[in-house]
């Protein structure tokens, strides 16, 4: 499949520029950033809090735009992504690059001037990490790409926390670790039962490179590390019983489903019930865990 050529008179529409920011991915970024902001000790003015979330969202949008600018060739060969503005020929690459860089610079300046420069610095690093370290450097070269990409997705609660407190303590690091270790089991569970054309695009995804059984074993290992990170805020007395109870119950459920996946031997994607259950539960897990963190903070306050 070839990349559709862009007509010389093609002017990218506002909808296509919006699509370039991956709005669906942004919803999780906004949610975890709000959780980091609300869980942090201290207060932030609602206008500044709103501006911090806006800057984090724009930064995530910039990362997504730069990612699509670089991955036009990959997106063109995968069914799921072939209709994105660049591979479909509705926008030229230069527009995507300028839009991504412009949005990145604006989001960091907005964060620095309106909130504080520590959160702006972390935001700038997270954009650099996703666009350069993950997209350009490691995604095409290692099957651990999802693990590394998970780090980029784990920054928003840290930025939200730093926006309120102006520092980064153990608690935001634990929030980072929760998302970081949650990402591989979440994505690999999906990759086991969905044929996403990654091999056709030359992306070394774990189930393709290391095989399904190795991926299943790694899911179980990551679920244990995730459980340790999720329970740590309660064990270290940084949260109350509400979060502690929810974290323990959810982590037992996550570990149970992960071990069911590890014991599964099926090669037929249609029969991969354990993998589908784990994938669905992983989404509930993250939202419920961060929701419990906020509930806990409200109750303690």
């Amino acid at each position, binding site marked *: 499949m070839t990349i559709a050529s862009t007509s010389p*008179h093609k002017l990218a529409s506002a909808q296509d520029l919006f699509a370039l920011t991956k709005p669906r991915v942004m919803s999780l970024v906004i949610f975890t950033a709000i959780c980091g902001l609300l869980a942090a000790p201290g207060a932030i003015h609602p*206008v*500044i809090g709103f501006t911090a979330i806006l800057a984090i969202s724009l930064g995530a949008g910039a990362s997504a735009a730069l990612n699509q600018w670089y991955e036009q060739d990959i997106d063109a060969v995968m069914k799921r992504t072939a209709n994105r503005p660049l591979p479909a020929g509705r926008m030229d690459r230069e527009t995507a690059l300028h839009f991504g860089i412009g949005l990145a610079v604006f989001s960091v300046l907005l964060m620095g001037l309106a909130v504080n420069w520590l959160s702006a610095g972390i935001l700038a690093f997270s954009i650099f990490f996703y666009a350069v370290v993950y997209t350009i450097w490691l995604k095409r070269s290692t099957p651990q790409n999802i693990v590394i990409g998970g780090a980029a997705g784990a920054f928003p609660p840290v930025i939200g926390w730093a926006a309120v407190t102006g520092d980064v303590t153990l608690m935001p690091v634990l929030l980072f670790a929760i998302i970081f270790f949650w990402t591989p089991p979440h994505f690999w569970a999906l990759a086991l039962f969905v044929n996403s054309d990654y091999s056709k695009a030359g992306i070394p995804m774990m189930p393709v490179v290391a095989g399904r059984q190795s991926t299943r074993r790694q899911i179980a290992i990551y679920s244990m590390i995730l459980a340790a990170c999720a329970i740590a805020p309660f064990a270290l007395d940084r949260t109350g019983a509400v979060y502690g109870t929810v974290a323990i119950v959810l982590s037992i459920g996550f570990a149970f489903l992960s071990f069911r996946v590890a014991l599964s031997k099926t090669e037929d994607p249609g029969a991969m019930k354990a993998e589908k259950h784990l994938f669905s539960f992983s989404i509930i897990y993250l939202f419920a865990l961060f929701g419990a963190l906020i509930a806990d903070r409200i109750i303690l306050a």
Partner: protein
Amino acid sequence: MSEIDPNKKAMSPEEQKAYQARQKHRAIITAALLFFLVVLFYFITFVKINGSVL
């Protein structure tokens, strides 16, 4: 300095109409975003100076 693009053909009336409609739509969205930012910076200025909006 502008260069002449040999691949560039003149637009048909329909293409020109669609192009101008897209241009107008983008201009309206840009204006709305700029207005939103003006209001946001107005409130941020108050918070930074007074510690509150009012």
